[in-house]
């Protein structure tokens, strides 16, 4: 079987969507890994009320962890000059006013950019909602990172999501271990494929029809 990109490489490619001066909120999972690849001048935001904070505390630095400085997932971070601390009303105004980019994990993405990422079913108690719905609805750019298929090989990019939705028509970019796809008004545009993969092979693992970008190319990590 052909090699797919690993999680670090997906994260690396997702990080490339960010530019100098952007403010970004990273979800749990692959998005968290983006932190290692994000260009200088990008500020991190966490829902619980901080912007522009420094690197996460590593395993061998626990003694430097401070209770006052954690992200929404409970990870400790380092305070740095220029950051700001604020309450959650301000934090979600930031998130919902289109001032941020967000990179989130996904369970499923639909042809029209619907996102399912909080639950695989099981009703109200089958998953946790948190701030993901706010980010999906409110961010100026929503980038979803996920593996292209389930372990069993079933597509996660679907005509219609089967899992409970996080938000409708919210996704701008999908970055998987096989492809980079832009969600547009006319449908899903395949922009990049993983090295060694063809558009047809990616299409075969994707439920809705993909539109091939004029400049379709191999995933570019430069």
């Amino acid at each position: 079987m052909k090699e797919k990109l690993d999680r670090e490489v997906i994260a690396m490619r997702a990080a490339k969507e960010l530019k100098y001066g952007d403010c970004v909120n990273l979800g749990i999972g692959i998005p968290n890994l983006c932190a290692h690849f994000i260009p200088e001048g990008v500020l991190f935001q966490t829902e619980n009320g901080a912007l522009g904070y420094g690197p996460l505390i590593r395993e061998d630095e626990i003694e430097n962890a401070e209770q006052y400085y954690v992200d929404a997932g409970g990870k400790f971070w380092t305070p740095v000059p220029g950051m700001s601390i604020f309450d959650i009303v301000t934090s979600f105004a930031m998130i919902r006013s289109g001032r941020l980019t967000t990179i989130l994990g996904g369970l499923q993405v639909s042809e029209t950019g619907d996102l399912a990422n909080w639950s695989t079913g099981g009703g109200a108690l089958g998953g946790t909602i948190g701030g993901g719905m706010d980010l999906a609805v409110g961010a100026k750019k929503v980038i979803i990172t996920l593996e292209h298929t389930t372990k069993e090989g079933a597509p996660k990019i679907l005509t219609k999501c089967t899992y409970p939705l996080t938000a409708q028509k919210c996704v701008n970019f999908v970055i998987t271990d096989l492809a980079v796809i832009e969600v547009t008004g006319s449908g899903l545009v395949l922009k990049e494929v993983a090295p060694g993969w063809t558009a047809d092979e990616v299409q075969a693992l994707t439920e809705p029809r993909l539109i091939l970008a004029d400049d379709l190319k191999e995933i570019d990590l430069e």
Partner: protein
Amino acid sequence: MKNKVFSSFDEAVADISDGASIVTECWGLTGMSQNLIAAVKEKGVKDLTLITHNFIPLVFFGEGEIANLTILLPQLKKLITPVVGLQYLGAGAFVQEYVEKGLEVELTSHGTLASRLYAGAAGLGGIYNPVGVGTILEEGKEKREIDGKEFILEKPIRPDYAFIRAHKADKMGNLIYRGVYRADQPVMAMAARTTIAEVDEVVEIGEIDPEHVVTPSVFVDRIVKVPDDAFGSTKRIKEIIGKMGENELIRSLLFR
């Protein structure tokens, strides 16, 4: 000036009765009003409505190490929160037995909860919220198109009590927080009818710069200083963080 400084947590929660609604924060260890929570547990009042941004069993910690919000579970009638449990610990499974016995769980999103608390404070009757359209959150709620976009009508939240964990209070009740302890606490204090704060330090009037006050005194009714040996004291939290490295689950969740 009114004396807002109470000498015990029990005294500070003395008037809370069955059926009361309480909003309090819990983002991991931060901002938790552990001693007020423990006092409510001890008091044994029931049929409470609890509103919180996170309701998570912190299974990593030993008995008596922390007073986590989930100890109130048997006393709850209703829970309003965006987060019940943690996905990798089976999400909301731990509340299932209480749901079967009648606990009502109302899900919301973090941002929606913030807006609903603001709406409570500002006296609004409802807000048309963009978040939750097409999701489980719209069930049973009015949906409406405004200027070509769909919104869900969400109700304000106006709790009877807010439990606040702040860094410093002056004797008038002005509060400052530290780091992300701030989070939802200012809006909780504004939305609640009665606000009770547990704080690291009670300082004299004038020791907090008026420009740096985060929660103005009028929103704060009762203040209790957290003793050094109490839950959530700086000393105890430092000890807990120190021991985090010994727990493989914590290491994998928080440091990798």
